[in-house]
């Protein structure tokens, strides 16, 4: 036990840190807007991906279920929002109805996918979820005819932005003499969502439910013997993770104003997974770090590698997009072989790795 005075000093430092971070985060979009509005949009997307990664982290990191079709829940949330708030059906419900509906529908999909498959061993579950993700995408792509539901590959356009009464997130306002653009408004909204999701994740992790997830991840048979209904607990993880994805999807639809099946391909699932793995499965801070890194680094590359190549070789040899993907692939392999806990491993992973004494072992 540490002396009380030290704890009090720590908590004062913590409070100061929180205030400073809050001020920095509040000022950030204006600084970014100074460089270019594109950077505010990039930041917004990064936060969206952090939301997604945190949702996937519940499934993969907490409960130990590898989901390779996670983007499907993002898609479901996005389409639920788009169909209920666009000219597609002429429905324009407010976001406080559509976002929860998106979360709910995604959760239902999560349970529908999970119920028949959760008794499968981990790697099979992974492939089935991948198949599920593809099925959802194929349906979105093809449900444009004979009855036009999703508008097929052309996607849904002119989706309503978020608005609360007269306050429209999509358009610029002048507040206290400061021009606050649409993206900056969304930034604050997303930031609030991120804080909420981090809060929920941490609370869940340190709870009876979180311990049950850990138990299932560590040893299912022992978990059952301890009175844990493993099927229920896993379904809960699926549903929770999916609903996070659903909310993120709804926000994505509102912010972009346009969605099409192309935004929900397998690579996106893998990208979200990379974020979780790179940052540190099971560690909320690590996952956010992973999401921000994998969102920003490629953008930085886009602005540096392209021009650099032109300068050096007179033309673009390797597209930044390709470099980005190569980095993803390399990161997955290197992290798993060299630093399996991720950049910022959770306490449990750290223990696991020190117990295991390195990743190499006899042929199983």
């Amino acid at each position, binding site marked *: 036990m540490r002396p009380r005075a030290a704890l009090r000093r720590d908590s004062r430092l913590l409070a100061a840190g929180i205030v400073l971070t809050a001020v920095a985060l509040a000022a950030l979009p204006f600084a970014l807007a100074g460089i270019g509005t594109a950077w505010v949009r990039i930041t917004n997307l990064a936060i969206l991906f952090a939301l997604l990664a945190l949702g996937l982290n519940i499934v993969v990191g907490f409960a130990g279920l590898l989901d390779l079709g996670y983007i499907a829940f993002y898609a479901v949330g996005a389409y639920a929002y788009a169909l209920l708030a666009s000219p597609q059906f002429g429905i324009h419900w407010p976001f406080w109805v559509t976002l929860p509906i998106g979360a709910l529908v995604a959760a239902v999909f999560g349970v529908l996918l999970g119920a028949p498959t959760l008794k499968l061993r981990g790697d099979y579950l992974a492939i089935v979820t991948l198949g599920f993700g593809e099925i959802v995408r194929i349906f979105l792509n093809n449900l444009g005819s004979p009855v036009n539901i999703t508008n097929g590959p052309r996607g849904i356009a002119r989706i309503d932005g978020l608005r609360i009464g007269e306050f429209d997130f999509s358009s610029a306002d002048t507040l206290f003499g400061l021009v606050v653009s649409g993206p900056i408004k969304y930034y604050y909204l997303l930031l609030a969502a991120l804080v909420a999701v981090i809060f*929920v994740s941490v609370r*869940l992790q340190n709870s*009876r*439910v979180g311990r049950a997830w850990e138990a299932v991840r560590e*040893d299912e048979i022992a978990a059952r*013997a*301890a009175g844990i209904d*493993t099927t229920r607990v896993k379904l809960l993880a699926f549903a929770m993770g999916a609903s996070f994805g659903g909310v993120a999807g709804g926000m994505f639809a509102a912010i972009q104003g346009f969605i099409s099946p192309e935004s929900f391909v397998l690579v996106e699932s893998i990208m979200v997974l990379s974020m979780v793995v790179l940052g540190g499965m099971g560690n909320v801070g690590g996952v956010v770090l992973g999401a921000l890194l994998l969102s920003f680094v490629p953008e930085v590359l886009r602005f540096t590698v392209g021009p650099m190549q032109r300068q050096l070789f007179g033309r673009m040899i390797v597209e930044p997009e390709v470099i980005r993907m190569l980095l993803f692939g390399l990161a997955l392999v290197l992290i798993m072989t060299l630093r399996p806990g991720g950049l910022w491993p959770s306490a449990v992973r750290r223990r696991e790795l020190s117990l295991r004494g390195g990743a190499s072992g006899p042929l199983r």
Partner: protein
Amino acid sequence: MIRDDRGRDDAPALGAARSPADARVLLRALGISKKFGGVRALEGLSFSIRRGEIYGLIGPNGAGKTTLFNLLTGIDAPDAGTFEFDGRPLAGARPHQVARAGIARTFQNIRLFANLSVLENVMIGRHARSRAGVLGAILRDRATRAEEAHIEQRALALLEFTGIAARANDAAGTLSYGEQRRLEIARALASEPLLLCLDEPAAGMNAAEGLALKALIESVRAQGVTALLIEHDMRLVMSVCDRVLVLDQGERIAEGTPREVRSDPAVIAAYLGTDPDAGASRAGTG
């Protein structure tokens, strides 16, 4: 100490009699049979475990001990026969339901949550006797906070009881073998079981650890928990059990006090004419 005085109404109170008719019987097995493929593992096995006793289950390798354990704890379902626990049938119960009904177990090849802390292991053991859900976890309302505090306090008490409180914050995987056994027992006790099933708890222990284990089992019983003990270590069985059931090839060949069983000709024959004490050196699964 291991009794939870704050147990709720729906949680079975430790050692409390429920149905007056069989007040003394906690578990009754009636005609349990199980085949694997064509091989008979258990045939029409019946026995009763009385409240508060330590009941031993022994037999040579392949006698059906582990099969019985798996049937009782819901991992497998019997082909025929029923278990009646605390006056209620256990038919078709899945492992977590068995745990909730008040049967806790340890595993022959220790199954701890090796990467979690010792304390967390025991706290997980209380899952069946707590109820906070997602909403409680997120809101952390007063009831949830009280429950969490209670879970932690109970878990710490159990670590004291089993003598491993000093390791509470270490990863379970770093414990010594004997300590891991104790932790498994602590985790099992966390669910406030009426019946504690121990699957070869002394396997792989040295003499000192074995003695300490014996003392632990006896103090568990002193708290009013009934125990079912599968064991190869005859000395432990003979010294700690009140009654012993001997299985051979899926059938009961003897039941009685250790002294009665020890001198039973059928038992001696089953152990190939050797003195049961010699079985102490046997190894392997039942």
